[in-house]
């Protein structure tokens, strides 16, 4: 123990004997640590946002469909459970939110243009929390109930169709007999979505109006459930699974939106790779510094050995030097990262590059997310790899022959 305190005092003093070199090295380490943590937090925030957006883009946490619906999302694959039956099984079962919808492909036509869209017949009250629609941010108004005869479309779609609130559009789809089901709707509201794809891909009408138009009675095509946390959907999944039989398929969000699901997995691997890559760049500087520090004082080391210091103590001292350097550097880096995330915690406006981000399905405001596990990971990886990198110069220093070392010029 005494040995350790002597060694660390020696190491600490040595570090500051050549303070310029130490400060440069500290700078490199802290910038490296800052980059690891800061960039990870940004990427985490982005992926998180993408997943939250993705989930609010309608999948919910758990979905129930006709077994063939996901392969062929058509009116022919209706859920075998109608609204009354669903109500009986799921109402008051303690989900954060749940809702059944009619979701089929349709064509929307104005006087000048027509576009393929996904028609969503919803019960607006039940959808709260399940859609990406921000009811505060609607030109006009949102649907008021499942019997609302209006239609709400995206602002971008309205521009494409050259139409606006108050005008009529025609929605065309087909009924289960493959006959045309169409109806005129008056536009009551235009919604804005963070992703342009949503803005021109979805149109919302009242659920019962859609059911009448498609002549499907009380049937729907999907039921979605929202649990507490998207990272842990198992309880919700189990609960839904227990309430239905094999005639329907129950899926977690990461099975429905496989892109989002694998994104989350990739992200965890990406953090480790990112930390290691930065460290590799750092390690050259670190090893170089240590090797220099050893070469510089061959005579000093020889003298200490001649005075009776054990080779293991020499080894320990060099490793301690590198550890001290790393710990101080990491501490500064962690502080820097925290300090630079703090002011942008409430969202970083990246709308300058929004177009590119939207292609990836991310929105234009970035909320960095600092996870303790990422900080710990970065620090531990740097310390362990730093220890390994300093072994070689330390080993070399401890193997000097005292006489040779002292006489070395």
């Amino acid at each position: 123990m005494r040995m350790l305190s002597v060694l660390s005092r020696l190491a600490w003093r040595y570090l500051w004997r050549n303070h310029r070199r130490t400060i440069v090295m500290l700078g490199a380490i802290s910038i490296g640590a800052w980059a690891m943590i800061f960039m990870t937090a940004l990427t985490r925030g982005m992926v998180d946002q993408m997943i939250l957006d993705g989930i609010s883009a309608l999948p919910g946490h758990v979905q129930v469909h006709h077994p063939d619906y996901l392969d062929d999302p058509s009116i022919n694959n209706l859920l075998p459970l109608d609204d009354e039956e669903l109500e009986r099984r799921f109402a008051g079962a303690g989900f954060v939110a749940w809702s059944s919808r009619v979701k089929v492909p349709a064509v929307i036509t104005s006087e000048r243009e027509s576009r393929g869209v996904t028609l969503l017949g919803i019960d607006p009250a039940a959808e709260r929390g399940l859609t990406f629609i921000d009811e505060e941010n609607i030109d006009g108004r949102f649907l008021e109930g499942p019997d609302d005869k209006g239609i709400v479309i995206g602002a971008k779609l309205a521009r494409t169709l050259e139409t606006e609130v108050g005008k009529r559009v025609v929605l065309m789809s087909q009924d289960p007999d493959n006959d045309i089901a169409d109806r005129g709707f008056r536009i009551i509201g235009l919604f804005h979505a963070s992703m342009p794809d949503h803005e021109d891909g979805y149109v919302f009408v009242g659920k019962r109006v859609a059911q009448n138009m498609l002549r499907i009675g009380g049937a729907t095509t999907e039921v979605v459930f929202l649990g507490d946390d998207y990272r842990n959907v198992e309880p919700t999944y189990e609960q839904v699974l227990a309430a239905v039989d094999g005639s329907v398929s129950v899926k977690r969000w990461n099975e429905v939106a496989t892109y989002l699901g694998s994104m989350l997995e990739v992200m965890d691997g990406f953090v480790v790779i990112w930390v290691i890559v930065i460290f590799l760049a750092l390690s050259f500087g670190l090893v170089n510094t240590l090797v220099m520090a050893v070469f510089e004082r061959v005579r000093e080391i020889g003298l200490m050995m001649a005075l009776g210091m054990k080779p293991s103590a020499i080894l320990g001292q060099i490793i301690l030097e590198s550890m001290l350097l790393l710990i101080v550097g990491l501490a500064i880096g962690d502080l820097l990262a925290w300090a630079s995330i703090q002011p942008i915690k409430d969202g970083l406006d990246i709308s300058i590059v929004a177009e590119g981000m939207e292609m990836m399905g991310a929105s234009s405001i970035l909320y960095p997310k600092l996870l303790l596990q990422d900080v710990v990971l970065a620090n531990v990886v740097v310390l362990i790899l730093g220890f390994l990198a300093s072994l070689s110069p330390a080993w070399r220093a401890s193997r000097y022959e005292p006489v040779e070392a002292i006489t070395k010029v």
Partner: protein
Amino acid sequence: MNTRILLPLLLLVSSAAANERDATQIVRDAIDHWRGLSSYTEMTMVIHRPDWERSMTLQAWTKGDDRSLVRVIEPRKDRGNGTLTDDNKMWTYSPKINRVIKVPSSMMGQSWMGSDFSNKDVARADDIVDQYDHTILSETDEDGIVVFEIESIPHEEAAVVWGREVLRIREDHVVLSHAFYDQDDELVKTLQSLEIVEMGGRTIASRQRMVKVDEPDEWTEIAVNDVQYELELRDSLFTLSNLRNPRD
């Protein structure tokens, strides 16, 4: 006292209702006149674009309100292409691929055989009668024939994108023009009758042209070469198998 006030009021109400019924009746009569209980038409359709023009000769049979069969006889390479409508359903057949295809709802808004008519125009010609409210805007005398100008406004839930349509119909049931206005009341396209002749025992518009207001260089013209009305048409004419294998 009471009757003296009520009577004019009653007359007013009933005349408004009569006007509306009249307008609807005029439109219905015009369509029935054009189509008859059954009909056979041979016509030439010219599709004109600024840089090209193409013409095709078609045969068409109709029976009742909702059944029709159209078949291309010229040009040779398109010979046998056909369209069958029954109620609101529509099928097309092309001998080149030897398949009958049901036109999905998503394609009803698209162009019929490359013309300025949509599939929907062809399949659902008589929606105009019952999915609209008709009123007579004016009655004028043109060369001794009364012409009714009728405004047709689609019902709120009708599958029609137009704000209103204005038809000019002669008292002998010939449609002179059919104008489509958008919901800002801007004229979008018109179907105009260019020639009116006596044919098949009726006075009909023998040449009609559909023009979009924005693109006056793009139009589709349909000229009737021959027409016969009130024929005995077999029901088997309007079947998928006849669409595929003509047996006439």
